[in-house]
């Protein structure tokens, strides 16, 4: 009665890629800058994708509206941080964090609340039907984006980084933006929390079972709907958090930002394989690294690096790096 052995190969992809490109880049400091920035970027991508990993991976709901929650989180952050100018303007990192933390919390709460409504009115009737999910969540996405425009206006709004978080740490010639390190910390926390919930509790099992045969799970006495709502809300909240991180990174927000990241997130999930948090993390890290390396070595290909990466992974494992048996 043992669980299966852990599959290390995909995990090794990340260092393998980094080492593989080293000779092409030549300069050590450039390599360090690119690699560290790429990994940290991967972490940010992981954060924005993590909510969808939950919802798509566990509940098999392909939520095209996920991007809206990202945008929502970012817009809420502009309001919260805007109201806390004293804190963001301070040079002290700790006081800055005092502003960023509430922004994150509020963004997550708002996204969660909207997620609740989204689940009830949009997703609930279409569980188990991918096509309808795609259609209806796209409708939801359009509505959400327009509502953001109604509330915050259609314009790009600046979301300035708090003073203390700007700038970089320098190690010789290599530069690492401070903000990216914060992203790594947040990303690792999200990852650990997700992993714990999914592997140490029955929740993950129940949801996977519920997706395959909802009636049977109910017949066993579980209120699957409550669970589904919970997961969806959690996924939305994570998207909200991702929105804050993404918005702060770009330092400006536009209502379309959600739609802009959707494809990226999907690619990460495909690479990672359905339902695997670890897979999503690896997918995100690979995407982050790959973007920087191709951007440096063959900038013309940078636009297509994600797709090439995805194709390569799918040729190796058609179900993504960590596929559940299907």
């Amino acid at each position, binding site marked *: 009665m043992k669980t299966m052995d852990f599959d290390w190969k995909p995990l090794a992809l990340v260092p393998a890629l980094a080492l593989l490109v080293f000779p092409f880049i030549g300069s050590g400091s450039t390599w360090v800058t690119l690699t560290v920035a790429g990994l940290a970027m991967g972490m940010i991508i992981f954060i924005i994708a993590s909510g969808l990993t939950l919802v798509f991976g566990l509940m*098999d709901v*392909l939520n095209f509206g996920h991007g809206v929650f990202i945008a929502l989180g970012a817009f809420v952050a502009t309001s919260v941080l805007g109201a806390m100018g004293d804190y963001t303007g301070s040079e002290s990192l700790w006081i800055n964090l005092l502003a960023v933390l509430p922004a994150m919390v509020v963004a997550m709460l708002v996204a969660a609340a909207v997620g609740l409504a989204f689940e009830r*009115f*949009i997703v609930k*009737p*279409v569980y188990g039907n*991918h*096509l*309808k999910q*795609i*259609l*209806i969540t*796209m*409708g*939801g*996405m*359009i*509505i959400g*984006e*327009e*509502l953001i*425009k*109604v509330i915050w206006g*259609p314009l790009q709004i600046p979301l300035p980084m708090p003073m203390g978080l700007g700038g970089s740490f320098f190690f010789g010639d290599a530069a690492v933006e401070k903000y990216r390190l914060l992203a790594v910390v947040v990303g690792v926390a999200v990852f650990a929390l997700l992993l714990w919930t999914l592997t140490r509790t029955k929740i993950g099992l129940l949801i996977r079972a519920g997706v395959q045969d909802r009636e049977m799970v109910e017949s066993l006495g579980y209120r699957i709907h409550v669970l589904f709502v919970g997961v969806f809300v959690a996924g939305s909240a994570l998207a909200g958090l991702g929105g804050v991180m993404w918005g702060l990174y770009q330092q400006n927000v536009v209502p379309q930002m959600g739609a802009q990241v959707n*494809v990226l997130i*999907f*690619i990460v*999930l*495909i690479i990672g394989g*359905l339902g695997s948090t670890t897979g999503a993390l690896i997918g995100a890290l690979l995407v982050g690294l790959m973007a920087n390396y191709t951007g440096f070595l063959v900038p013309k290909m940078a*636009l*297509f690096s*994600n*797709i090439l990466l*995805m194709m390569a992974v*799918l040729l190796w494992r*058609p*179900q*993504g790096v960590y596929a559940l048996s*299907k």
Partner: protein
Amino acid sequence: MLNRLISNDYPRSRVLAVLLVALLMALAFSPFIFPGVKALNVAAKVLIFTVLVASFDLLLGYTGIVSFAHTMFFGIGAYGVAVAFTRLGPDWGALLIGLAGALALSFVLALAIGLFSLRVRAIFFSMITLAFAAAFQTLASQLSEITGGEDGLTFKVPALLAPSTSFADEPFFGVSLDGRLACYYLLFVLTVVLVLALLRIVNSPFGRVLQAIRENEFRAEAIGYRVVVYRTASAILSALFATVAGAMLALWLRYNGPDTSLSFEIMLDVLLIVVIGGMGTLYGAAIGSGLFIVAQSYLQELLRLASEAASGLPWLAALLSPDRWLLWLGLLFVLSVYYFPTGIVGKLRALQPAARPRVAAAKAPAMK
């Protein structure tokens, strides 16, 4: 005769039949019933979308493949014609060369897609096509030497179809007989022919196998159908029809650019029309296109009126602002998936008491 023309596939609902005839008549006489440039543009767009959506329905509704790369073929058709006219000048030879080139490219890509669709899970496949469509659009705007990049291509069409050509000095029933009108009727005839051809295909033995594959691919293989072959053929056919629709678009607009024929918004429109009209029924494509395009074209005007009426309530006025027309389109999207899971055609057919005359009608002679 009619029977053969529509491949024995009757609307199976009196209301639907009336709607279809009304739509056909409206499109046939549109220039005379609804004068004005805008109305003619709307009518032409209905024609083009009817072909595009019907071709997509072959893939989605009949074969059960969810692909987001359909606009890619639409774009290839449009670019084929646009590039040919730009390079070779506005004559019919250019049109043929452009269309042939586009069809060839679509064929190859669709073949690849069809084969690929078998390798990965369906849901993966649709996400991958999404990424591909996005990449293709980027590619089109990157190759500005050929495609005109973001700015697209503006070009001239053969004299017969150009707006400046006039066939009669006097207007006919208030409509000037110019190249624009000729172009409209070219599109009209093409649309009728293409839709009837598609109708024949979905009602052929081949079309029936596609439905079986949609329902249960595994079993279709087990009773002796090579799923790869049928799926790929369906993907290719659907792509070729979409390519022609794209060529029609370019011919009508005398312009093409990445957003015009490749944008994801068009894909969304197509999806929505398929759903509103009713998946797996080609008539739905026609009815859906008619309704949707007209609604889309006049929604902003409608909202302007509504928002003025609601000016007492600022928040409502903000929601009803014509600038927020997409909001209402999105709502329409959600509601139609909610309340019209089988689309307009499905709803209308369900209203008709004689629910299954198709089999009965087809079988009656066979029983003797």
